[in-house]
């Protein structure tokens, strides 16, 4: 037979139960306590209500589509500035290093 729990010990149980994280055995002990203790039962109900109310009371603010477009364009411009697009070298450019300073290549063949 487990010792009866005091209200102070119930605080953590209540917190975990509100989040649905209380293991089964502990949940049963909490339920037994709540049946006998109006104060803890009230505390439990109030915390459950508060958790639900916060979600309802704080609507998610949405950015305007125009802002999202502007912000993304600005970010892309910043990106382009840091990583400028480099064109692949043309076939002529690719040959230049070999040609530079070597005007007599024909004579080697």
């Amino acid at each position, binding site marked *: 037979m487990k010792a009866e729990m005091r209200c102070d010990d119930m605080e953590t149980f209540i917190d975990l139960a509100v989040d649905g994280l209380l293991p089964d055995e502990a949940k049963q002990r909490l339920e037994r306590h709540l049946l006998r203790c109006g104060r803890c039962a009230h505390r439990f109900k109030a*915390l459950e209500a508060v*958790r639900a*109310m916060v979600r309802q*009371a704080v609507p998610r603010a949405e950015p305007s589509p125009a802002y999202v477009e502007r*912000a993304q364009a600005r970010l892309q411009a910043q990106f382009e500035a840091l*990583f400028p697009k480099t064109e692949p070298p043309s076939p002529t450019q690719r040959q230049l290093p070999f040609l530079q300073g070597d005007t007599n290549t024909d004579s080697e063949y």
Partner: protein
Amino acid sequence: MEELQAPREGEDRGPGSLFEQRLVLRLQSGSREALDTLFEMYVHQVYAYAYHLLRNREDAEEVTSEAFLRAFERAFSFRGEAPFRAWLFGIVRNLCRDRLRQPRLLLLEAQDIEAQKDCRQPYRQVENALLVRQALDQLPEDQRTVLMLCDVEEWDAREAAVMLGRSVEATKSLLYRARRSLCRTLTAMLEDDES
């Protein structure tokens, strides 16, 4: 390139997922597509969080833009030890704090008022929502933040812990303390209201 970025069939693409990790690696190697995808994934959440802290559309927009620019510039220093979202929100939080330190006019946003006075909501619900908002405003910033992350945005306590720079246990403890504070504040407000 696109094939690498696209999530595999049925693959989780949430915070801390392998998909997100691949995106961040690609961002670090200079992929604009990765940057665009991360922006699209998180711009709405970042804006909502900034707005929640600043209560002003213009400020929230500026902070959101700044946060993405900063995250992009600092992407190379991100080592992937925590989910990217928690790291990004840490940047947002710091930017909001800097902004709140600046002298500013506190204006009640039209959007805020409209959201609360939505005529489709029953009167009592609107009244409750306003009371909860007022009670939230009375909480310390860390308590408001943890409620916003865990109870509104439904973040996992582990991710919220990373963003808040606390242990998971300390974060849960903060969350439970915040709920109890809010409960006490609301009760006091309702009692004042009745008397």
